């Protein structure tokens, strides 16, 4: 809640200073559906706030975040996509980010990005299933 309030405060005077580039790219490429704080729309767009810290805890989840169509097929460059993902993980996660989390690099994003994800929903459900909750 405090995070959401801080985000609102951060957005309110947005016009005064230029928006940080990773956040600006989040706004232009992701926010339309995931909304400003990543909470999505119940029943329509899943919230990333809970799933981000859980997904980055595993190598498969880390890869999934780059491979989802909205990320891999966006018009962002590999470096821009890496910066947006790092910003999202550190800013929108509702739970503490795993201490072992390392920032995505452009090269890492490139290596995942060109391997298409065939079953998006199925992969997501498997990665976030309770059996894997321990990470």
């Amino acid at each position, binding site marked *: 809640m405090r995070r959401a309030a801080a985000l609102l405060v951060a957005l309110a005077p947005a016009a005064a200073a230029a928006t940080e580039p990773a956040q600006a790219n989040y706004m232009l490429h992701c926010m339309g559906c995931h909304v400003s704080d990543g909470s999505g729309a119940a029943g*329509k767009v899943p919230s990333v706030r809970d799933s981000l810290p859980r997904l980055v805890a595993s190598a498969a989840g880390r890869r999934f975040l780059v491979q989802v169509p909205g990320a891999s097929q966006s018009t962002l460059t590999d470096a821009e996509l890496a910066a947006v993902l790092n910003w999202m993980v550190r800013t929108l996660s509702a739970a503490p980010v795993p201490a072992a989390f390392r920032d995505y690099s452009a090269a890492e994003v490139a290596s995942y990005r060109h391997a298409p994800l065939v079953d998006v929903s199925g992969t997501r459900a498997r990665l976030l299933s309770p059996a894997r909750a321990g990470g």
Partner: protein
Amino acid sequence: MSRLDRIVESMARGVARRSSRRHFLGSLGALLCGAAVMPLLPVARGAPAPAAGPAGADPGDPGSCDYWRHCAIDGFLCSCCGGNTHSCPPGTEPSAITWVGTCHNPGDGHDYIVSYNDCCGKASCGRCLCNRNENDKPLYMPFASNDYNWCAGSQSGIAYNCSTARIVGRAR
């Protein structure tokens, strides 16, 4: 029964002793007059809440399709439909799911990130159709296309009324 009579009688006499018809009429008059004057008090009624906007100049008419914030809009302008550039008309609900683009403000030379939240839940407004679609991509590029009914993302269903143009950030 006579006891109830006595109680009522003593109350009525008490009221009669303590009050007068003139006093009652005076109070009633003040009440009616006060109630009539209340809506005239200088309160900012219906004044839009200040939204995040450009720090400097903001040239143009928000009710016009040519207004700079409308560069990527596709729909009826809420400014012509009982709302304004950043709030929905009464009785409609803003869709959380939106089309986001950037527009150049000729007033201060900066590019702003604009969120075109649709207002949903009532039939099409039908006034001030504006279809400028700057940077809109065809539907085969689904993540960069604005040709959706964004009201599908609202709780009130797909009835589309009009579109707002809210500034959410400033691009570099």
